[in-house]
């Protein structure tokens, strides 16, 4: 299969953002319904943001729901309470999650390994309770309702988010920008630095890189991208559930990354797509979806630790030279 696969993958590797976008353009046709496609778009982005930290820098955070949630809530609150334009609301959501990322990161990067995971978990929970308690602004456990964007004119045509297809393509716009940015960062010298840090912190420091500062930077970037995913989700669902801040939501990012292949560019997206699609199908088939999801998850960890996309790349790399980082 390698000879057949190689040229395709080489092409994808060369224009990874372009190819993913081409795919996403036709994506709604492949999905049973648009809302699922939008969900995959959003969680794909969420997983990509998480992967920046987990896959590329090797820091396993259990607090990433905080960024998804803060993005959602700040965007939602700007629309519901402050009646701001939805674009500004998104900007606020992303900014806020970046800020929270800076704070959490500043505290968390002092710790390593499982302790890092636990600190992020704890800080994430603190954010959760913060929003849970601010019932007046966030709606508390009931969630924030009424995040609606009225139909508007753009370049002569009416954009109405209650039309799922329109919504999908607008969201795709944002995801495209974010993916472009991530791809650029990974290809940049800084991208090399964070991979070096993942491989060997001591060595990176001996090379003269400020490990702590680099880690913090990735943390903030990752947070902002997850924040954008959150912002989009608020507009997509027109509600912000408190669950979006819960640590189980953080766990979902890990699952998606692993399923798709951590430390690969497409992996998280593939992971999110497969995860959500499976869940969608399995839940309608059987009430025992947890068992199915759990089993699939274990199978992957045992037999395909590099994830779906990662394993594909693996085959390919074995067939060719171990060069391109896709």
């Amino acid at each position: 299969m390698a000879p057949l696969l190689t040229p395709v993958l080489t092409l994808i590797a060369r224009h990874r953002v372009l190819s993913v976008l081409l795919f996403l353009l036709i994506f709604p046709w492949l999905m049973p319904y648009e809302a699922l496609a939008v969900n995959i778009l959003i969680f794909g982005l969420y997983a990509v943001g998480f992967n920046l930290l987990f896959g590329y820098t090797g820091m396993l955070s259990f607090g990433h729901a905080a960024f998804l949630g803060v993005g959602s809530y700040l965007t939602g609150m700007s629309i519901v309470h402050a009646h701001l334009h939805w674009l500004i609301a998104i900007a606020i959501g992303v900014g806020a999650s970046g800020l929270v990322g800076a704070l959490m990161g500043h505290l968390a990067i002092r710790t390593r390994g499982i302790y890092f995971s636990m600190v992020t978990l704890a800080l994430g929970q603190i954010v959760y309770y913060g929003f849970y308690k601010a019932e007046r602004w966030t709606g508390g456990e009931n969630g924030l309702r009424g995040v609606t964007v009225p139909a508007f004119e753009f370049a002569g045509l009416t954009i109405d988010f209650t039309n799922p297809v329109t919504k999908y393509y607008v969201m795709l716009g944002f995801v495209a920008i974010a993916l472009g940015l991530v791809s650029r960062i990974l290809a940049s010298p800084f991208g090399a630095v964070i991979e070096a840090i993942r491989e060997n912190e001591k060595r990176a420091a001996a090379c003269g890189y400020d490990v702590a500062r680099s880690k913090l930077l990735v943390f903030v970037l990752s947070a902002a991208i997850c924040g954008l995913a959150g912002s989009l989700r608020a507009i997509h669902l027109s509600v912000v559930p408190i669950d979006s801040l819960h640590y189980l939501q953080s766990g979902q990012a890990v699952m998606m990354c692993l399923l798709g292949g951590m430390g690969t560019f497409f992996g998280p997206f593939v992971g999110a797509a497969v995860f959500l699609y499976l869940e969608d199908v399995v839940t309608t088939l059987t009430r025992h979806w947890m068992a199915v999801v759990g089993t699939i998850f274990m199978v992957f960890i045992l037999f395909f630790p590099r994830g779906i996309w990662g394993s594909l790349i693996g085959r390919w790399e074995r067939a060719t030279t171990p060069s391109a980082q896709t």
Partner: protein
Amino acid sequence: MSTLIPAPTPNPEHSTSHADQHADQHAAPQANMQATSRRRLLQAGAAGTVLAGAPFAINIVRAQGAPIKIGFPTPLTGAFSAEAQDQVRAAELAVKEFNDGGGFNGRKVELLVRDDKLNPGEAASRTLELIEKDKVDFIVGSLSAATQLSINAVTRERKVIFNSISQSDAINEAKDWSPYTFHEALNPHMTAGAVARYAFPKYGKKVVYLTADYAYGHEMVRGFERAGKALGATTLADIRHPLGAADYSAFLPRIQALKPDILVLCNFGRDLVNSAKQATDFGLKESTRLVAPVLLFTSRVAGGADAFEGVVGGTSYYWGMEDSIPAAKAFNDKFRRAYGGAVPSDYGALGYAGVRSVLQAVVNAKSTDSDKVADALGRLEYNWYKGNQFYRKCDHQSVQSIIIVESKSKGMKDKNDVFSVASIEAPSESNLRSCSELGHKG
């Protein structure tokens, strides 16, 4: 679902209901489960291919005789799955009745059940799925304040009728409400009020609340205190506990020290089981009466007689009221016939009523158009299972009777005989918060 220890076996049926399946369900649940799954698989596949063909078809023109579709999002998995699955059974009963009665000029009804996992986000996207992919005409369902509010947020934006069958005060309020929003279930204000009016005069005026710290809990407390004021009850403390806490022992010493006449457990489901159980262990019942706004049939069965001994609470329905209410008798019998002798639970019954109201409105409106049906629902006066009900004009809250039950610990006839009906408060608009208070004009 085979169970090693007797426990109410939920019905595995998961999609549109047909009489023949109910027949074999109790013969061979497993087999039926698989049968169901297989059919679902086919359906999913079909739907998939169809939609893959035309993703942009947002409003497909429906041929005459095409089924009327009712979307039914409810937490089939998670903490309230028992109640949810009973809701489904009852809803399917309503659908079956309607179809057996010939449907709506030739059009049969199809119930599309979806698992919202008790997660508002999931509920919202499931509702989007039902509207976008399955093109449902109406939505009935939900089993928590949060999920019903997020379902409502989606439906009202798309002008789809949603008849909610779980409790919430917020959904009545103008902020969330829409002309397409209906509330079949009781709300905390009504329930708490009724329980207060029964319990405070009877058991004493010094009250402590142990409250799950979320809107539902706060709304319950508000309801009790409002009704309590008129009755001269005093609140010694309102202790807020984290939602879903497993251990309440840490809250109990203080309650002991307060020596209240009544301890109101303003929480739901498992929280209620846990707190009641542990309050019993701490010997609180010796001096204090335990009261719960909503005493769930299923929680009582799961929690056991000891924990709930002597606990008094409210409910929208208890099968035992059939002795005094003919409609209840009729409903129970239908349910028993369909499900091998099982009795409907409180929330289950709501599933039946929620669907049946919508279908009756379709008949009255002679249409499935949202606005026409909404109008017909607004005028509806019905008695499906517990006596006369109607939707209040301003907020579409179903005005209905409230049943006060006391948990039995001895002399039970069978595993379903868990409550004794202490009193039934007749339906009255005066027990609801006023329209103006909710922010509705006129």
